[in-house]
Structures are given as C-alpha cells and as structure tokens.
C-alpha cells in the first residue's frame, strides 16, 4: 500500500471576502496520527471539511488512497472510509445514541428501521472500542464527554479508516483525553489513519507522529513530532517568535505571571454569592449551592471542564437565568431578584461567552453596539442622540484599538477578535465594580489575547472585582488570585492561585478529588 491515504494540494477556498484556504496542502502517510495546528481562523476546519466532502474547494485537488476525489460529497467520503468528527457537535439531541450512530446508514429489516439491530451493533462497537456510552439514552441527556464519544462511534460505525478529529479535546477532562489517546492509538495500530486538530501543543507532542502547520489559510510547515518543540511549532503558527501566552499547557507564563500582582484581598467585598442554585429547563440542578465572594482588586478564576455549571453561574449573576435558591449581593445591594438592567446599574459588567448570540447585535453598527444596554442614557428628549453615540464610538474605538476604526460598519463584518474588542470596549469602557468575564479570549488571536489580558489586569489594579471563567486552565492560572474548579455544579476545590498547577487541579476537574466523592 504505497498510495498515501490523504494528499491535498493547492486548495483554495473563499467565503465571501474571507480566504479560508489559500494553496493549502496536506500529505498524510498511512498509519500515522497527523496533527493539524494553526491559529484561530487559520483554515484548519475548512480544509478538513473539504476532505470530508462538506465543502467544495474553489481550486486544488484532493486525493484519497491515490484516487482523485476532488469535490466529492459527504456520502462519498463516508462510503470511502473517511469520517469526520466535527468541532461542533453534529448530534440530533432528540434521538438516542444508537439512532445517532446509525443515522444515514440505518440497519433495515425490509423497509423498516431495525432498532434492535442498531442497538446490538452499537453496543458491540462500544465493547470493541472501549468508548463507553449508554446506547439507548437520548443524546440530550449525555455529558459532553459522552457526546464526544458518540461522535467518534459514528465515524467508526461507518467503517472509517481515515478519521478526522476537529478539536476533540476542547471539551474533555484530562482523564477523558487520556482515554481518547488510547482509543486513537489502537485505531492507528489497527491500520487507521488519523488527522487531529488541536490548539494544545502538549497534546500535539503527546500523540502525533507528524505535524502540519497552517497560517492565514496556507500550509506553512510540516514537521516530524519527535524532531520539534512546542516553541518551534508556535513560531511556525504565528510567523514570529512569541512569548507564549497562547494557551498551551506547558507554555503559559508560569508562576512568574503572578509575581507582579499587588497583594490583594484587602479591598471591600464587592460580589458575594451565597448558596447559589440554578436549575435548567428540565429542572435539573446545574449549579448546586455555590458560595464565594470577591473583593475589590481580586480575580476569582473558575476552571473546569465546560458544561459543569460555569455558564449558568455567570448568567445567574448577570440576571439571565432564574435563581432557584441562594443570593447574589453586589456592593451590599441584594440583586438576587433584580432585573438585568438593575444589576447593570448596580455595577455589573458582563463579557458573555458567546459574542455572536449574546454579546453583539450583528446587524447593528459598531457605534450602535457600543451603546447596547445604555441606549436610554444616550438619548435626549425621547430620541437617540446620534451625535453623542457617534462621538462615544470614536472614543472607544480609539481606546480599544478596534479595526476598522470607523463607527459605521455592521458588527457582522468584523473579524472575531475585533468583535470581541467591541464587547470588551462596551463593558469595560463604562463604570462598573464587578466584571463577569466568560471565556474572554475565546476564538481571538494572540495579539488580541494579550490586549484583553492587559485590560483585565488593569481593571483589577483599579480595584474592580473580577470573576473570570475560562476553559483554558492556563488563562485562569495566569490571571486569577484565587482559583476554583467546578465539577457537576459545585466548587470541587478553591485555592490560592499560587498553590495551583494543572497537575493539582486536573483531578478535581473530573471529580477525582472532589469533596463529596470523599
């Protein structure tokens, strides 16, 4: 078998003005685990979608096992043993695990869907691969880790020999990641070929055999894992030497980052959360009796695997979710039952985790977005004060270095990083005492991350109380004074950042050391 399983060359793909891929190439040898790395928006997912038949390239050729398959469809890809596990879950929540796994390839008895066989087949596959999930459960009831396993089961069920995984570890806890590695190695040893996308350079070093680096849509490097270092990979990704503050487990700005901190814990109590409980729409407690407080000049960082209640905590404090029990006090004012508007008036600023859904009105201009929530203050005798809104926008744009630097463009037309800057500018550009920052650097590039981190540090130094939630453990470690780990709706542990390391916190993230497990 001399033909390479994957050979892509000269791939071009544009989405409107965005050139997602430009003359990108990829060459994967048989039986290897190949890592595909690059900054946000570098074009990794697009390249893999082209390989998986989801997206058609504008130019270039795709060869699979030596055959030209350029422009094939998803079903062609599946039929030829190419399986993609997408960055965003592609599962139908109302169907069961087994139904999701066999969807599109259903076992039949006559013209009927053979549900029994689907179940036995999927259970057999679970046995064989060790990807344990309850096959007859609805997907909506699964944890993210389980859902991730279902995604992999889906591709294997279709007999995938070439497996593409787009950031499968983003939502997994360290033990889950280790389990995944076992599965992937086994698949490789059974003759499979694996392409893995991840932002975590330690993982790249851990698992891959070969690495392809992408930057701005193009392939800029190809290296053998055993012959390179994280720093070298990072340099290739960004195109210059970087003091790695890019999240990546071993490359974070270590304990030194905390050294420049002024001694905190002296300020006034600005945010007090007591016995906070939040239920989801199915009345399941997703936040379960959490208590903490933050003083002026303090950053509390919440780490944890996503989906353990972090989103809900922030949204409950911000007033976007009903509080089932407990209380929230801001600067001495009880806001437990207050409206979003009143909480904002009480001093809460909020950088939401999903800027597209919550943080911005994408059709509105930059200027309009910069007054979102404050529109009443920017009006005069019942009318919006256009001149003031414009002046305000110019000021904030300059201060937060938003590009393009004019107020008129719609937020939709900005890049992700600049969209996030608009949100930050609005929330931090007004007076506040408590900042809720949820995934503040998600999906933004290195330069922007530096900028945002600086803003957060400055706010802390100015005596604000900051609640930082991030999926990036390293970000939490870099910014927080106190670190809490959330697991299943509770704080599994709270400790000073100076004592915290990934090794110490890791087990708590999966319930290993949690107090109620003890």
């Amino acid at each position, binding site marked *: 078998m001399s033909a390479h399983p994957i050979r892509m060359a000269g791939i071009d793909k544009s989405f409107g003005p965005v050139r997602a891929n430009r003359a990108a190439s990829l060459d994967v040898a048989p039986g290897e685990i190949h890592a595909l790395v690059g900054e946000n928006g570098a074009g990794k997912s697009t390249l893999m979608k082209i390989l998986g038949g989801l997206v058609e390239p504008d130019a270039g050729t795709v060869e699979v096992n030596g055959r030209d398959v350029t422009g094939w469809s998803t079903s062609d890809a599946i039929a030829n043993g190419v399986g993609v596990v997408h960055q965003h879950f592609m599962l139908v*929540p109302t169907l069961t695990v087994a139904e999701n796994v066999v969807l599109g390839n259903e076992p039949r008895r006559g013209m009927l*869907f053979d549900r029994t066989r689907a179940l036995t087949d999927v259970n057999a596959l679970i046995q064989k691969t060790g990807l344990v999930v309850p096959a007859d459960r609805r997907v909506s009831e699964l944890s993210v880790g389980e859902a991730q396993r279902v995604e992999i089961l889906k591709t294997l069920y279709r007999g995938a020999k070439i497996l593409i995984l787009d950031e499968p570890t983003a939502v997994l806890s360290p033990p889950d990641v280790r389990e995944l590695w076992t599965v992937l190695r086994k698949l490789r040893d059974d003759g499979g070929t694996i392409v893995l996308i991840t932002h975590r350079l330690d993982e790249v070093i851990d698992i891959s055999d070969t690495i392809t680096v992408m930057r701005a849509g193009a392939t800029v490097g190809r290296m053998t894992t055993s012959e390179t270092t994280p720093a070298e990979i990072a340099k290739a990704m960004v195109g210059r030497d970087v003091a790695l503050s890019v999240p990546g487990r071993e490359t974070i700005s270590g304990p030194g980052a905390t050294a420049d901190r002024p001694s905190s814990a002296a300020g006034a109590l600005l945010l007090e959360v007591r016995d906070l409980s939040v239920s989801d729409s199915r009345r399941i407690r997703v936040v379960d009796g959490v208590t903490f407080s933050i003083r002026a000049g303090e950053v509390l960082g919440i780490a944890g695997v996503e989906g353990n209640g972090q989103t809900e905590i922030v949204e409950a404090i911000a007033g976007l979710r009903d509080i089932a029990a407990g209380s929230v006090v801001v600067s001495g004012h009880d806001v437990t039952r207050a409206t979003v508007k009143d909480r904002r008036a009480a001093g809460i600023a909020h950088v939401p985790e999903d800027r597209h859904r919550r943080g911005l009105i994408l059709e509105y201009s930059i200027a309009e977005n910069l007054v979102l929530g404050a529109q009443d203050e920017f009006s005069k005798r019942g009318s919006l004060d256009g001149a003031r809104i414009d002046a305000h926008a110019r000021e904030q744009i300059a201060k937060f270095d938003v590009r393009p630097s004019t107020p008129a463009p719609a937020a939709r037309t900005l890049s992700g990083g600049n969209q996030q800057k608009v949100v930050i500018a609005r929330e931090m550009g007004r007076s506040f005492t408590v900042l809720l920052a949820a995934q503040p650097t998600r999906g933004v590039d290195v330069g922007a991350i530096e900028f945002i981190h600086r803003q957060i540090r400055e706010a802390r130094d100015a005596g604000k109380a900051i609640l930082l939630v991030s999926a990036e453990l390293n970000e939490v470690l870099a910014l927080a004074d106190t670190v809490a780990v959330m697991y299943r709706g509770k704080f599994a542990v709270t400790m000073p950042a100076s004592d915290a390391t990934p090794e110490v916190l890791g087990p708590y993230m999966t319930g290993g050391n949690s107090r109620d497990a003890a």
Partner: protein
Amino acid sequence: MNPFDFITQTLRIAVPYLFAASGGLVAERAGIVSLTLEGFMLSGAFSATLGSYYSGSAVIGVLAGAAGGLLFGLLHGIATVRFRADQVVSGIAVNLLVIGLTQVILMLLFDSSSNSPRVEGFQAGLSGFGDPLVWMGLASVPVVAFLLYRTPFGLRIQAAGEHPEAAASVGINVRFVRYVAVAISGVLAGLGGVYLALDQHQFTNNMTAGRGFIAIAAVIFGRWNPWLAGGACLLFATAETLQIQLQGVGGIPSQFIGMIPYVLTIVALAGLMGRAVAPAALGRAED
C-alpha cells in the same frame, strides 16, 4: 342522538383534520412550517373534483386530488428549500394563490364563481364509513407515526428538523428529505380536501373554511407527536359535534359556541401545555 351517531359524526368531522394534521406534522418535523395546509387542502379538493368530473371515477378523483396537493406542496418546497423563502410568508402566498387559482379556473371551466357540477364520489352509506377516505384519514395517524418512528426515512426527517447540519454531516441530503416531507404533507392535506369534495360530490369555492388552520393548531396542541396531534384532531372534532348538538340548547348564542375550538386552542397554547417543543430547526432554511 345515540352514542354511535355521536361517535361516527365526530370521526367524520375529524377526517379532514386528521389528514391535514398528519401531513403538517411530517413537514414540521422536517423543519418546514405548515401554514400552507389550508391551501393544500383546497387544491386537493379542487383537483379531485376535476379528476372525478372528467373521468367519472372517484378513484381517479382521489389520485388527482393527491396530485393537486403534491403540486402545491412542491411549490412551497421549492420556495422555501431551494430559494430559502421565509416559510410563513411562502405559506401565506401559497394559500392566497390556491384560493385565487381555484376560483379563476372554476370560472374558466364551469362559468361559476361558487361551485362545480356534481361529480362522482364513493358510496359512503349512512354512517359515512363506506367511504374509503374515512378509513384512510383514520389510518393517516398510525401511518405517519410508523413513518417517523419505524422507518429509516422517519429518522432522517427527525434529524432534518432538529439538526440539519448533523444530518448533512452523515451524508443525508437534507434538501431532499425536506422536499419529500413537504410533498408528503401536500398529498396528505390534499387528501383531506379530497374527502370534503368527494363527500359533497362537488367543489365549493373556499370549502375548506379554515380547517387547515385548525389542523395546524392540532399539530402544535399535540406537541409535534403524531398520536397526540391525532388526539387533538379528535378533540376539536368532538367540540364541533358538541357544537352541532348543543346549538339552540340553553340559549347560548351560536357565535359563542362557534368560538369553542379557537378559544380552546388559545387556552391550550397559553396554559395547559407550557412552552412549545417545536423541532429545533423549524422555519430555518438549510444552508
């Protein structure tokens, strides 16, 4: 009125609702909003009348009626799936188009703005149960439940309505699934109209009289579950039978008795069932 008559009357009244609601359910589960049921029914009724009139055969009438529903089902499909037109807007347009076209053609062919000549129908008998369409209407609920839950295609319909991207990622042609679903809904709702027309042995202008909207209410009332939606159809039909039986009793004005199904729907939407659990991708164009 004896219980037998009460039940048979309720079932006869339910037949067009059952057809239309079953059809609407298939389309909605695939993610296509079904405000079109009224138009599908009317086009079914009209085509059935033409088919029966020109062939002299009720069976041909049924086939023609199904084809009429299919035609406008596909039109709605092309507008919303191919051109990604807003599904509510397209629905309103389709309804308007059918009302206008049926009248124009009625005028053209029969020089009448109100009704067609008498056509061949089925020997329904006194209870109405001699009409095969009654049985088909009653069967449409289990058939749709079977389609949705027991066939591979049903699984794909559900996937297309809940998470079209996920369906597409495993090689399912979501557009095709939606076309088929909206075509099925056109045929089924069309058959509801066929029943009305052939039972009357003629087409009367606008003879569906809002039944398509009651059917869509039944789908929502039934929380997009075929069995519950079928139950809702029977509930509405029972309300109507009661309305027929109660008229003139107790001095309640007919206007108020006539409101029962509508008020029932509003109350149900507001109170009894809580938040709707519509298919997640309902109304969203696939891209």
